[in-house]
C-alpha cells in the first residue's frame, strides 16, 4: 500500500480457508498492533478492539465464504467491502469483475461504487457495461456473485426495487420505491452461486418478496414455487446469505429453501428466528462460526474500510 507508506515487506500469516477448497491455504498481511491502536484512537471509534461489531461480522463471514480463485461478480455497496476483504485475506487469487466494465482489479482503497476509479486500479482491462455482461458474465466468468438487497424471501429471491409500507395511521399501504435492479438481476441470473449481504431484520426477511427483482435461489416465488430452470434460467440456484448474526444457505436438494447454516453467537439463535418471516429450518451441516480473529479485524479496519463507510451503519433490530 504505497500511499500509506508501507514500504517494508509485510509479515504474512498462513490461514486455512474453511469454505474454499479443503486444504488450500492462503496467506495475508499482518497489520501491526500499533497501527490498529492508532486507528481506533484516531477515529474516536467506540468498539471493542478484539471482537467484531455486527457489520464487521457480516463482511468477515462473506469473505470467508469466497473460494480463492473464484470469478467474483460484485454488486455495488456493501458487497464491495466483502470482495475487498476477501482479496486481502482468503481469496487473493479471486478475479473481481464489476458491471461498470472492470476486470481483475487489485483494489487498494475501498470504492464507494462499482463505478469508482478505486474499483479499477490495476485491472487487466476496462470495457463497457455490455462488454462486461457479455464477454464476462454471459460468456461464463461469473462463478460467485455478491449482492446486497432490501428483501430476501424463503427461496432466496431478492427484492431491490419496491416495497409496500403500512401507514401507521391506518391508511392504505403505499408503494415505496427502492434503488432498482442495477446489475443485481443479471448477476443472480448468471452466477453459479450468489452470496447476499444483508442485516438480519424481520422486515428484510419476509416469506414472500414484494417485488421479485433478482432470483438468487433455486425456486421462484412462493405459491408457484417454480424451479428456476422452468423459467429458462440455465445457471445458478444456490445462495448463501451472510447477515450480521448468522449465515443462511439454500438447500440444494429438495425444497430449495433457506436454512440456518451457521450462527455467530449461540445466544442469538432466538433472535434469528424472531427476525425471519418464515419458520426457519436448520441445515444438517449447521455449526457455530469461529469468531473473527484479531488479524481479520485489523485488516478489515485498517485496510478495507478505514473510515467505516460501510462498517459504521447501525442495525435496526
Amino acid at each position, binding site marked *: 500500500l504505497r500511499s500509506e507508506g508501507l514500504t517494508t515487506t509485510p509479515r504474512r500469516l498462513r490461514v486455512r480457508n474453511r469454505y474454499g477448497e479443503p486444504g488450500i491455504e492462503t496467506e495475508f498481511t499482518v497489520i501491526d498492533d500499533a497501527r490498529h491502536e492508532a486507528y481506533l484512537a484516531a477515529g474516536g471509534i467506540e468498539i471493542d478492539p478484539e471482537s467484531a461489531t455486527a457489520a464487521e461480522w457480516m463482511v468477515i463471514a462473506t469473505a470467508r465464504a469466497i473460494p480463492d480463485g473464484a470469478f467474483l461478480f460484485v454488486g455495488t455497496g456493501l458487497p464491495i467491502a466483502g470482495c475487498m476483504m476477501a482479496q486481502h485475506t482468503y481469496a487473493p487469487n479471486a478475479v473481481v469483475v464489476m458491471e461498470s466494465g472492470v476486470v481483475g482489479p487489485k483494489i487498494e482503497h475501498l470504492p464507494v461504487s462499482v463505478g469508482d476509479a478505486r474499483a479499477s486500479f490495476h485491472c487487466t482491462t476496462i*470495457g463497457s457495461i455490455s462488454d462486461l455482461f457479455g464477454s464476462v458474465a454471459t460468456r461464463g466468468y461469473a462463478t460467485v456473485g455478491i449482492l446486497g438487497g432490501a428483501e430476501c424471501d424463503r427461496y432466496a429471491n431478492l427484492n431491490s426495487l419496491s416495497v409496500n409500507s403500512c401507514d401507521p395511521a391506518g391508511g392504505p399501504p403505499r408503494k415505496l420505491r427502492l434503488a432498482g435492479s442495477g446489475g443485481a438481476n443479471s448477476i443472480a441470473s448468471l452466477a453459479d452461486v450468489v452470496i447476499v449481504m444483508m442485516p438480519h431484520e424481520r422486515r428484510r426477511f419476509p416469506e414472500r418478496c414484494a417485488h421479485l427483482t433478482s432470483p438468487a435461489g433455486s425456486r421462484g416465488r412462493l405459491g408457484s414455487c417454480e424451479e428456476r430452470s422452468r423459467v429458462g434460467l440455465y445457471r445458478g440456484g444456490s445462495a448463501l446469505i451472510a447477515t450480521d448474526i448468522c449465515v443462511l444457505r439454500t438447500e440444494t436438494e429438495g425444497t430449495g429453501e433457506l436454512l440456518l447454516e451457521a450462527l455467530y453467537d449461540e445466544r442469538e439463535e432466538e433472535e434469528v428466528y424472531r427476525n425471519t418471516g418464515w419458520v426457519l429450518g436448520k441445515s444438517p451441516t449447521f455449526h457455530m462460526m469461529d469468531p473473527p480473529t484479531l488479524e481479520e479485524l485489523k485488516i478489515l479496519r485498517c485496510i478495507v474500510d478505514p473510515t467505516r463507510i460501510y462498517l459504521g451503519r447501525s442495525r435496526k433490530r
Partner: protein
Amino acid sequence: MSLRGERKVRTIGVTDPSGRNKIMSAREAVAEYIHAGTCVAIGGFGYTRLPMTLVREIIRQNVSDLFVTTCGAAAAMECLAASGLISRLDTTYIGLEGLQPVANSLRRQIEDGDIEIIEEYDNCSYSARALAGRYGWPFAPVMTGLGSDLMETDVLLGAGFPQRPEDGRCVHDSIPPQHHHVIDDPFNGWGLRPHEFRDGDTTGNETNALPEVRLSTRYTNRPGVKVVLVPPLIPEVAIIRAAVVGDEGTVRLEGGIWGADNEIGIAARILIVECEKIVPEADLRYAPEANTIAAHCVDVIVEQPFGGYPAAVPGYYDYDWDFWTSYSQLNRRNKEEVKRWWHSYVADTEDDWHFLATRAGRENTSGHGSIGWERLFELRADATYGYRPQLSRPLPRA
C-alpha cells in the same frame, strides 16, 4: 434533389454540415438541442465522469419535462430530479451508492407520481439495449430478467406506460413499442456456456441446466431455451464527459470506468461531449486505437476543465466526497426547499467558470472549508492511482 451521398447529415471535421463549428459553449449546446420533452441519455457511472457541466446548464436554463435515460448516472439524475426537471425515466438504478441507498429526490418524485417510470430493466438488458442502439441492431438477446418481476413490468401491457395512439407510434420517438420479447432459441441452447466439449469447457462457470431449460414452456407456451430480446436504446440526445476530445470530434474517454458511454453516445441522434480539454485532432490520431468514438458521431464539443465536479474524472480529479455527504443530508428536506437550494447553488451562476470559482466546496459541512479553485485543487488526482488516495472520506454523524 441531391445525389446519393452528397447530402451529409453528419461529418468528420471542425464544423457541422451547416458550416457551424462543433465547439460550443454549454449554454449554446443546451439551448440548441435540449428542450422540454427531449429524451436525454446521460453518460458516466456512479460518481465517475458525469457530464455535470451540461447537467448544470440544463438546471440554469430550467429545461423541464425531460425524459431521462441512463443506467449508471444516478447521481446526475438526482440533481436534475431535485431541480424538478424530470418527468419520465427509463433506467435501472436510482441509488447514490454507498451514501444514500435510494436517491431521495428521485424516490420521492417517483412515489408521488411527479416522475413517470417508463421502463425498468436490469443492467445487462439495458446495456444490451445500448449496444443494439450503437450497432443499429433491431434488438439484442440477453439471458437475464427471466423469472423475475422485471418481466412483468411490460409497460405496454401493464400499468404506468403512456398510451399508444391509434397510428401505432408511441407518444415519444425514444419509447420502444415493447419492453421485451421472449423467443425460443433457434439453436436450442447450443451456444450456452459451459459448452459440451468432449474434454469439457474451460470457462469459469460450472452450472448449465441445459436439459432442464430445454423443457421450459414459460413465456412462449412451448418447450425451448428462452431468450429475451430487448429493443435498442435510441435517445434523441446523449450527453457524456470525456477526458479529451479532438477539435473535429474524436473522443478519448480515458481511464477509470467506461460505463455505457460509448454505446449511448453512438446510439443517440445528437451527441454532446464535454471534456477537460480540446486538443488538435492530430494529437489523438497518432494513437487511434485509444480513441473510442469516431469524430463523425460527435455533434457538439464543450470544453470545461473541472466540469465533472462534484464527480470524478479519473486521471484528473477525484469526486468531492464532502459535497455528496452534505448533499445526502440536504436532500432530505422538503421538495420545494431542495429545489430552491439547487437554484441558489447553480441556477444563479452565469456559467460553469463562475460556478466552479464560487460554489465548489461551498456547501460542504464536513470539509476544511476551501472554496472554488482551492477546493478543486485539493481534489486533483494522484498520477499513480488516477484518483486521490489520501482523500478523507468520513461519513456524517447521524
